[in-house]
């Protein structure tokens, strides 16, 4: 005879299972990793990103760069949730075309940044989970970097890191650029007003970006595989791919 106390149902040991209510949620977001970096120089801008696409413990792709070319003078780097990155870049492309057709001119970097802020804010209550950084040349031909939060707050910077390794890269850039500033201030250069530019040549800036990503790949699991660097000058956009750690 089966004892009614020992059995709570087919195969379940009544004393050893949780009997309360369980809530299973669907999350509309996922975290796909990746790091983006942008640097503004005197007459150039650099936007760089790694190319690893991960989710949880898996790597979906080793060749998924996060820099997207918008115009001949502007590149955007998007990291966070890959689905939202794709949709956001499609919407930006559509709005750029609409502007070109209505106004017969290409949008400037500053205008793209202001427009992206309003696009992101239209999703204030159900945000795009994307950390954006725009790099490009402004109307005077000087380098410009604009960094955003997921709901559209933005400002113009000299350099900015975003994405999973941003908290590691940003202090390193602060340190490297501040020591450059200190060296420059010994020659008497003090820039209090207006936007500052890194007093680095283009070659030194590209080397700094490569070194900084190599460090990030050492210590962040979501960053690695390869580095895509886009250098924006008045002659156009030059792309290079450099291998990083694949582990």
């Amino acid at each position, binding site marked *: 005879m089966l004892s009614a106390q020992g059995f709570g149902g087919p195969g379940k040991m009544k004393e050893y299972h949780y009997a309360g209510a369980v809530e299973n*949620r669907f*999350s*509309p*977001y*996922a*975290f796909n990793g990746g790091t983006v970096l942008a640097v503004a120089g005197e007459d150039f801008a650099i936007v760089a990103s790694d190319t690893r696409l991960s*989710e*949880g413990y898996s790597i979906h792709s080793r060749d998924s760069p996060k820099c997207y070319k918008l115009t001949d003078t502007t590149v955007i780097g998007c990291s966070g*949730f890959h689905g939202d990155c794709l949709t956001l870049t499609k*919407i930006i492309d*559509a*709005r750029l075309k*609409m502007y070109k057709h209505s106004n017969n001119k290409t949008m400037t970097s500053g205008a793209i940044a202001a427009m992206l*802020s*309003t*696009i*992101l*804010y*239209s*999703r*204030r*209550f*159900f*945000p795009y*989970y994307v950390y954006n950084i725009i790099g490009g040349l402004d109307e005077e031909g000087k380098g410009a970097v604009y*960094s955003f*939060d*997921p*709901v*559209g*707050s*933005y*400002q113009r*910077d000299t350099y900015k890191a975003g994405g999973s390794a*941003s*908290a590691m890269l940003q202090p390193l850039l602060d340190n490297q650029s501040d020591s450059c500033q200190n060296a420059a201030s010994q020659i008497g250069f003090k820039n*209090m007003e207006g936007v500052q530019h890194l007093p680095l040549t283009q070659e030194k800036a590209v080397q700094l970006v490569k070194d900084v990503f190599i460090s990030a790949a050492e210590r962040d699991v979501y960053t690695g595989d390869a580095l895509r660097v886009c250098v924006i000058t008045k002659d156009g956009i030059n792309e290079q791919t450099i291998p990083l750690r694949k582990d």
Partner: protein
Amino acid sequence: MALFEVSGFKPYSEVRAQILPFGQTRLVDRPNHYTFNTKTQEFAVPLGEDPSGFLKSCNHDGGVCIDLNHGTTTLAFKFRHGVIVAVDSRASAGNYLASKDANKVIEINSYLLGTMSGSAADCQHWERLLAKECRLYRLRNGHRISVAAASKLLSNMMLGYRGMGLSMGSMICGWDKQGPGLYYVDDNGTRFSGHMFSTGCGNSYAYGVVDSGYREDMTVEEAYELGRRGIVHATHRDAYSGGVVNMYHMREDGWIKVCKDDVSELIHRYKEGMF
């Protein structure tokens, strides 16, 4: 339901539709794929969810961590020679400092300034919209908008989205036909006129300093020093405030930018005089 109709109860969404000043803002689950927000302003809302708690519930699900920029100390006070506005420049996203040189004062026109505290995106968006409305008012009516009317426009925008989780504490400062004007507006729709306000998480420290040094007949230099000290002492004690002090002086002929001083240098200077 008979009682529902007889009692005249209106769901908040209907009341919201009557208050919204620009008539056309709608809440949908995703933006229109043909006009992309260029014709009417639309906000996407997660269906079936309470918007103010939605983001918090998504965090920690599989590594997702959406942190928005916020945190501040701002202060403003009226005195005999106009209005002093002083703000810090730190923007934090969770525990990470997203920016040490954020701009928290929006120059609406040469006679109107707006400060920003709370969520950076909310402040930037709504105050930029306020600047647009002020410009339209000037074009339609031939004279500049008053500080009272500008602050009322902003507080009505906030009332339209009350309960949806916006976070904004702002001071609208200006000089109009009534003289110097200072209004405090926040995300609940509160709107106060006064002669001194401080907002943000460091506001209590700033109040202590400014209350103890304030006199209506201060000289201009004394007022600048008081505004600086208020922000510097608040940044010293509040973790979410820091960076530089950005100070503006609103005078009868418009505002001027007074200074942009690093707080860590100033705090050493003030501590020297203490002991």
